[in-house]
C-alpha cells in the first residue's frame, strides 16, 4: 500500500498548497525512522482534505512537515507559488501567518500562565511593528550607564559601591533590552481587542467572561475553541488540524466539528484534517487520503472510498470499525493479521505487503504508483480491489 506518484495531483494552478515527494526521516539512536516516504498531495482552495491512518502512519508528521515545523528531509511544499522548503528562515517566518495549526491536546496547546485574550492576540502582537518605546529607551540608558561605570571601575581600580551599582545598571539594562525584543512594552492597539472579541464570539465563547481567564478554568472543549480562535485570528488561508477532536468527549466532538465547518465557511478557510477516526474524517472531508507506514494508499472522495475501498488496507480498516448498530454485530471481516512493521525498517516495495492478503512477488519488488480508478479516486496498489484505468492523456502530459 504504500505508494508513490503524482497521478492524483490536479492542476498546479488550482491548488492552494502542493506537496511533492515529501520525505521525513529522523535519525535516532537505533537507526533512521522513515516517518514519511514519497508523499505527494495537493489541497484545493476551500476544500477539506482528510488525512487518515493509524498510529505510526506519518499523518501528523506530514502535517508538521508542511508547516516546516521542522522542515522535511526532502521534498517540496509549494504555497502561493513559493517552495517553502527553499525559503530563507526569515522569509519563512514572514509567511507564517497564512498557514496555521490546531493540535490534539487542548491542554498542552495552551500556555497555562497566560490569559485567553493574550493567547488569542499573540498572532497579531507578534507582527506589531516595534519602535522606540519607553522600555527600549530605559534599556538603552541603563546599559550605557552600566557599561561606562563598570569600565571605569576596571580601569580606575577599586570595587566600591559604585562598581556594584554599575554592574546592577548594566544587568538591568540588558534585562530590559531582552524584554523589549521579546515584545514587552508595546503600546496597546485597541483594534486588536475588538478583533479578539470578535473571534472569541465566533468560536462560541463569551468574550467578556472568557477574555481575562486562564486555560485551567475552561473545559477541554472550550480549550480547543480557544486554540481554534488563536489559529483563526491571523486570517490564514490554510489550517492544519492535527487530531483536533481525538482528545475530546463524544458529545463535545460534535460541537467542535460543527464549529470548524462553520468557521471554514465564514472565513473562507481551507482545512487539512488529520485523524485516526474514519467516521469523523468522513464527516468533515471533501477528499480523504489514507496513509500507512509513511506512504499514501488511496486518495478520493469519502463517499467513494468508504463505500467501495480500492486499497486492501482501507478495506481492512473499515471492517475493523465497530458501528453503533447491534445488527452489525457479526459482520463478516477478515481480521488484520500480523504486527505493524517497524518504521526503522519498512518493508521493500509496498509497505503494506507484510499484512496484505493479496500480496505477491511484485509487491515485494516494486513500489506501487498512484493510479486512477476513474471516479476521481486514486489508489497505489498492484492488486487493488477496484480496477484502475490508465489515463493516457494526463499520464503523457505529466510525463
Amino acid at each position, binding site marked *: 500500500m504504500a505508494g508513490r506518484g503524482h497521478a492524483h495531483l490536479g492542476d498546479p494552478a488550482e491548488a492552494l498548497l502542493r506537496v511533492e515527494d515529501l520525505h521525513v526521516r529522523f535519525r535516532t539512536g537505533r537507526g533512521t525512522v522513515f516517518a514519511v516516504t514519497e508523499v505527494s498531495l495537493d489541497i484545493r482552495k476551500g476544500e477539506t482534505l482528510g488525512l487518515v491512518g*493509524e*498510529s505510526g502512519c506519518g499523518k501528523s508528521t506530514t502535517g508538521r512537515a508542511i508547516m516546516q515545523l521542522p522542515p522535511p528531509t526532502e521534498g517540496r511544499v509549494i504555497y502561493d507559488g513559493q517552495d517553502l522548503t527553499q525559503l530563507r528562515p526569515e522569509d519563512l517566518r514572514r509567511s507564517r501567518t497564512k498557514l496555521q495549526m490546531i493540535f490534539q491536546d487542548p*491542554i498542552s496547546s495552551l500556555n497555562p500562565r497566560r490569559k485567553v485574550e493574550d493567547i488569542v492576540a499573540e498572532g497579531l502582537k507578534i507582527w506589531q511593528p516595534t519602535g522606540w518605546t519607553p522600555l527600549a529607551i530605559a534599556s538603552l540608558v541603563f546599559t550605557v550607564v552600566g557599561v561606562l561605570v563598570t569600565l571605569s571601575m576596571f580601569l580606575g581600580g577599586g570595587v566600591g559601591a559604585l562598581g556594584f551599582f554599575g554592574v546592577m545598571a548594566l544587568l538591568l539594562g540588558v534585562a530590559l533590552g531582552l524584554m523589549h525584543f521579546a515584545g514587552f512594552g508595546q503600546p496597546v492597539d485597541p483594534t486588536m481587542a475588538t478583533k479578539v472579541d470578535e473571534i472569541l464570539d465566533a468560536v*462560541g*465563547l*463569551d468574550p467578556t*467572561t*472568557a477574555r481575562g*481567564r486562564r486555560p*485551567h*478554568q475552561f*473545559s*477541554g*472543549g472550550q480549550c480547543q*475553541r480557544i486554540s481554534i480562535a488563536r489559529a483563526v485570528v491571523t486570517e490564514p488561508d490554510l489550517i492544519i488540524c492535527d487530531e483536533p477532536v*481525538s*482528545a*475530546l*468527549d*463524544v*458529545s*463535545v*466532538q*460534535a*460541537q467542535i*466539528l*460543527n*464549529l470548524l465547518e*462553520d468557521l471554514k*465557511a465564514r472565513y473562507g478557510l481551507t482545512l487539512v484534517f488529520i485523524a*485516526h*477516526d*474514519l*467516521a*469523523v474524517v*468522513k*464527516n*468533515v472531508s*471533501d477528499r480523504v487520503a489514507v496513509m500507512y507506514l509513511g506512504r499514501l494508499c488511496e486518495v478520493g472522495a*469519502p*463517499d467513494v472510498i*468508504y463505500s467501495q475501498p480500492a486499497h486492501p488496507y482501507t478495506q*481492512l*480498516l473499515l*471492517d*475493523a*470499525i*465497530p*458501528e*453503533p*448498530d*447491534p*445488527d*452489525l*454485530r457479526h459482520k463478516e*471481516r477478515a*481480521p*488484520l493479521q500480523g*504486527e*505493524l512493521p517497524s518504521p526503522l525498517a519498512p518493508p521493500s516495495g509496498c509497505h503494506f505487503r507484510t499484512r496484505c492478503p493479496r500480496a505477491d512477488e511484485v509487491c515485494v519488488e516494486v513500489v506501487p504508483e498512484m493510479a486512477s480508478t476513474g471516479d476521481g479516486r486514486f489508489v497505489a496498489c498492484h492488486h487493488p480491489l477496484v480496477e484502475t484505468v490508465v489515463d493516457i492523456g494526463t499520464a503523457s502530459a505529466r510525463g
Partner: protein
Amino acid sequence: MSAPSLAKTADRPLRTHDGDDEPLLVVDNLSTTFASDQGPIRAVEDVTLRLQRGRTLGIVGESGSGKSVLSRSIMGLVPAYATRTGSIRYEGTELLDAGPRELRKIWGAQMAMVFQDPMTALNPVQKIGAQITESIREHLDYSKTQRRDTAIALLRSVGIPEPERRLKQYPHELSGGMRQRVVIAIALACGPHLLFADEPTTALDVTVQAQILDLIEAQQAERNMAVILVTHDLGVVATRADEIAVMYGGRIVEQAPTQVLFRQMRHPYTEALLRSIPRLDLPSHTRLEAISGRPPDLLHPPQGCRFAARCPYAQPKCHAEEPELVDDGTGHLFRCWYPVGIASEQTTIDSVVTNAHVRQVGDEIATDDVVADDAATAPGPAVDGRPPAAPASADATLAEEDS
C-alpha cells in the same frame, strides 16, 4: 484446552449460559463518594445491577459519568478517601465491607480487571513471565514448571506468537496491542469468573481494537465468564454487549438489552448521544446534533434531573425533581419524567440516518459559555495514584481520562 490454567475453573461447577437463576454479581444501590477539601464528590450514585455468568454488560458514558469509578467500586479498588454505601454481592458473598485480606483472595482468582493503558498497566522493570505468574503464585498451588506452562499457554491463548521467548521479555519490547494482550493474559491467569474491561481499547488503533475485543469475546465464551465492558464508544457496546447501562452524572439513566436500547431508546441523553456521533453510514458533511453545555458538577449536583440543563425536552418538573429509575415492565429501565419514544417519532439508529441533513452555513453552532471561578478549580482526588480528574466544576473532557 487442557492447560493447567483452566483446571481450577473446571473444578468449579460449570454453569450454562443464559439459564442461570442465580446472578453472579448483584449490586444494589451502590454509591461512591470522594472526600475532597471542597466537599463530597458523589461520583457514583444509587447503581443497581445484575449480571449472569457468560453475559456481557456494557457500561457506556463520557468523562465524568462515573463509569470507571463504578467498575472500580464494585471490585473494591477505591482509594482510602472514597466511601461506598449499598451492597455488592458476588456469588452470594457481601463484598462491600470485606477487608483487604478477603478482597485479595478474590482479586485475580474471581474478579479481574483489564485496564485502559497497557503502557502503564505493566511493570516496566519486570519480565512478562514474572508478571503473569505473579497472581498464579498468589492464588494457585502450582509448581514452578506448572506456572511456566500455564503462562505459556495463556500467552498462546491470547494470540501472542512465540510465547516461550516472550516470557523473558520486558514490556517495552512489545507493541501496544501485544501489551494489552499480556494485560488480558494476566487478568485471566487464575481463571476469574468476572472480568472488568475498563476502556480496554481506547488507547489502541482501531485494527488492534477489533483483535482485542475478539479476544475478550473468545475467552469469555471459553471460560463462561461474565464481562463488564466500560467504554465511551457506542459502537463497541453495540457489537459486544448483551445489555447496556448508560451512565450520566454518576447515575444510570438508561439500561436495556442492546437491541432494545438502540431501537427503542427512552432517555433523551441516549438519543442525543446517538445523534451526535459521526458515523460511516452518514453522508459526508452531515450536520451533527451536538449536545450543548457540559456534564454536571458532581460537587454540587443540580436539584432535579442531572441532564436537565442540556436536555432539549426539559420541563419545569425536570429541573425541580430528580426522576427515579423506572422499569417499563420489559426489563428496560430509564430515569426520565418525559421519556422520548412515542412510536411515530421514535429516534432509532435508522432514523438518525434518514433524518440526517447536510450542514448549511448559518446553522447554529453550540456555544459553551460557562467558565469556572478561579477559586473553584481545585483538582479532584486522584484515582489510584493517577493524576486527579479535572476540577469538579470544570469537567474533565478528555476521553481517555477517568471519571
